[in-house]
């Protein structure tokens, strides 16, 4: 049909019209439009939680839209499952790879294909694709021995073997080194030259400027704008992504703060593991009643900072100070006894144990501070009572203290975890992603609880990638980039532009940023 159209070249490869997807409590995609033309690299831009992943899952047939139309080469289609998407010519490279570590590259690719192809033929085909796109990968290597960049190439090759007309890349650079980013960009440009469209999901502005000619921007599940990144500045795109009206959110002025309660002083820690981030010279101070926000894109050292503050990883003694006493050498239990509580980002398996009852999950952190333990014995009556009080005070939807943490929805478990820490009345608390994946009502309750806690004189540090949340909650703000913190900005004085640029790493720690920028320029 499309070939009979007058403007053949103008028929979009993929078009979404008014696509809407609702989850319980959240409108993930609200009437979203998207047009991807043949042979274009199209950026899908938005903050965490803006609805990017939901949208591409519908394109790849993992989710079905509640309403709206998907058009492929101009014809409306229903994409029932990923296999149907692949049959249409849609390939996808996920952020997290699904590879068998003990098998070879060739075996992994063979397992991921819908059709059975003889090994010899498949190997020849793989070598052809590798050669065509200038990708370096040995089909005989065992996956365990490969770097993350090489593993990603397996997924790319797997997608390219199907000769896709549209390749979806979900935050492909989040795990890559700058050099690997350069190589990836070269491959993507070659693909584009051969007429393949690419939908490139990211929130890294500099990458999008370097790579994409069109960008669709989502915010809060809604379509905001389609623009040409080369005609925009990082500043203006950050504004579209974050929303310029946010400046209107005001913090209650005239709040007074007490003395400094919680400090980090020149905290540095070496990186752990291949993808850890080293903490560099981190200093901050939080006064009684103050909420300090740490903004930044995921993977810039936020988890490492959190572990150093909670005591899970030991730090130099005087680099972390609570109420004028050094506590860097103390473990989590001793820090809690002194009044420092913490909530890590991950709910299941870190902040809570899925198979344990809420009573035992309460005892996880509150057992000493709330006096459940005497002589090594846990008073289960008290543990149950405390869990019940948290459930009541934070309206956690659970049958009772005997429910397991794993049976609660994400939002309810988060309310329980936040309540468990807040009701210990800490002197200071460090919280990571307090409302990640939590519906609006629960988010509001959690934020209110934090503000109230600050009102009672607690010093609070909130790490979040949700800038709206930080601007709403915090009195002051720092941005974390590549393991260091920016200067402290007062909320209200900081401009969105400045924050957005700091998050993208355009400014901030110079050395590492230069490295990244250079790698990108080489990729041109």
């Amino acid at each position, binding site marked *: 049909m499309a070939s009979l159209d007058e403007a053949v070249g103008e028929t979009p490869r993929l078009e979404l019209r008014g696509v809407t997807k609702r989850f319980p409590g959240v409108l993930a995609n609200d009437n979203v439009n998207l047009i991807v033309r043949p042979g274009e690299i199209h950026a899908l831009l938005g903050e965490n939680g803006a609805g990017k992943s939901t949208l591409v899952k519908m394109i790849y047939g993992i989710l079905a839209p509640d309403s709206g139309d998907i058009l492929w080469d101009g014809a409306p289609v229903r994409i*029932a*499952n990923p296999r149907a998407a692949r049959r249409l010519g849609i390939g996808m490279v996920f952020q997290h790879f699904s590879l068998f570590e003990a098998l070879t590259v060739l075996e992994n690719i063979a397992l991921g294909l819908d059709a059975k192809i003889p090994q010899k033929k498949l190997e020849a085909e793989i070598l052809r694709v590798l050669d065509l796109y200038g990708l370096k990968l040995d089909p005989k290597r065992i996956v365990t021995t490969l770097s993350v960049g090489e593993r990603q190439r397996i997924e790319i090759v797997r997608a390219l073997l199907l000769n896709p007309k549209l390749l979806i890349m979900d935050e492909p650079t989040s795990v890559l080194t700058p050099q690997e980013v350069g190589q990836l960009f070269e491959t993507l440009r070659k693909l584009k030259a051969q007429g393949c469209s690419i939908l490139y999901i990211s929130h890294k502005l500099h990458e999008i400027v370097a790579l994409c000619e069109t960008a669709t921007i989502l915010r809060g599940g809604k379509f905001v704008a389609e623009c040409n990144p080369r005609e925009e500045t990082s500043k203006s795109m950050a504004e579209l992504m974050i929303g310029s009206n946010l400046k209107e959110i005001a913090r209650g002025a005239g709040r007074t703060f007490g003395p400094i309660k919680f400090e980090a002083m020149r905290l540095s820690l070496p990186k752990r593991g291949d993808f850890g981030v080293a903490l560099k010279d981190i200093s901050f101070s939080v006064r009684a009643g103050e909420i300090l926000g740490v903004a930044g894109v995921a993977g810039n050292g936020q988890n490492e900072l959190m572990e150093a503050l*909670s*005591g*899970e990883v030991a730090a130099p003694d005087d680099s972390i100070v609570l109420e004028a006493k050094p506590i860097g050498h103390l*473990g*989590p*239990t*001793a820090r*809690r006894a002194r009044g420092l509580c*913490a909530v*890590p980002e*991950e709910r299941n*398996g*870190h*902040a*809570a*144990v*899925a*198979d*344990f009852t809420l009573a*035992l999950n309460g*005892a*996880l*952190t509150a*057992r000493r501070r709330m006096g459940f*333990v005497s002589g*090594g*014995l*846990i008073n*289960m009556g008290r543990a149950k009572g405390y869990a019940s009080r948290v459930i009541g005070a934070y309206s956690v939807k659970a049958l009772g203290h005997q*429910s*397991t943490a*794993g*049976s609660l929805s994400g939002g309810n478990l988060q309310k329980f975890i936040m309540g468990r820490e807040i009701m210990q009345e800490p002197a200071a608390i460090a919280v990571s992603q307090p409302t990640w994946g939590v519906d609006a009502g629960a988010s509001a309750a959690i934020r209110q609880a934090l503000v109230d806690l600050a009102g009672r004189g607690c010093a609070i540090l909130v790490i979040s990638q949700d800038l709206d949340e930080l601007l709403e909650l915090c009195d002051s703000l720092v941005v974390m980039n590549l393991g260091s913190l920016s200067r402290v900005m007062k909320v209200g004085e900081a401009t969105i532009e400045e924050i957005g640029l700091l998050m993208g790493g355009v400014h901030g720690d110079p050395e590492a940023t230069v490295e990244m920028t250079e790698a990108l320029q080489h990729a041109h």
Partner: protein
Amino acid sequence: MRIRLEKRRENSRLMLALTPIFAVALTMIVGAIIFQALGYEGPRAVAEIFFTPVLASYKWPDVAAKAAPLILIALGLTLGNQAKVWNIGAEGQYLLGALGGAGVALVTKDMHGIWIVPLMIAAGMAAGAAWAAPVAWLKNRYGVNEILSSLMLVYVAQQVLNYLVTGPWKDPNGQNFPQTAPFTPDQRLPADLFGLPFPPGLYIAFALALVFWLVMARTEFGLGVRIVGEAPKAARYAGYRASDAVWSTLLISGAMAGLAGVLEATTQSGQLNLGFPSGYGFTAIIVSFLGRLHPIGIALAGVVLAISYVGGQVAQTTVHVPSATAGIFQAMMLFFILASDVLVRRRLRIEWGGAKAAAARA
């Protein structure tokens, strides 16, 4: 029709309690079929293995004597299994426990007093724990897999036993047999107590089952062990160090195996010889899982496995099955209990006309 396994919101406690019974029942059914197919009287073999030891009261002392070490060792192993620290070397720690006791016996052979047996027991527990200590150290220091190191130490322990009973500890009056001197009456425990045909080890095992229950369910230590096993990151966050759990669970399970070994030596054999190794340390792994990692379940499972040992011997003489029969039945029990675990986390759903529904969904 479609049969589907659906994930449960909460693990089923009912299934947790019922699956060991399924496992034993399935073992009996499949075992009967296999042995029938092999040309034996299958159903009769199963009856001899599982029912004769229960129905014939003269077999009870034998069952009790085997249940005691199985329960003691399994209790210790369970603590490790809760923390996902897999001690496969209890057999070696059991041997060392017996050797510890025998060492004390050698030194005290001309002495008298009721303190001697307690000293032997203490030495046995210490020796068992010491045999597990390198496993913990290697795991914490170098990340050595405890399954391998603990298992390999079993073979070292057997060589230590061989060396001692054929060399320095050999009974000078033993006509050159590879065995230690018999323990003196002051070094022995009676094989029955209070006029009942049960050895003291069984009472100790049941009492310790209650202690372990309390420790696992109600102490800060027990909570820590369980969190380390369930969610290592949460354990760190809750202030528990995984390395502490490795040390404590291995030392305790080593001491428990050592206790079983020294009690076996003082109560049953009364000396050590090359035939002392019994395989209790390995069978106790089955007891731990069949007992659902719960001390009370372990007490029951220990009795069931002891029955299968005794019954296996009965069936050898009456139905003429091979000596490996008891082992085959024990292995089947472990296999079925692990396989039936799926029912704890999932429920079976049978959808009639499911094909149509599935097509409608797609």
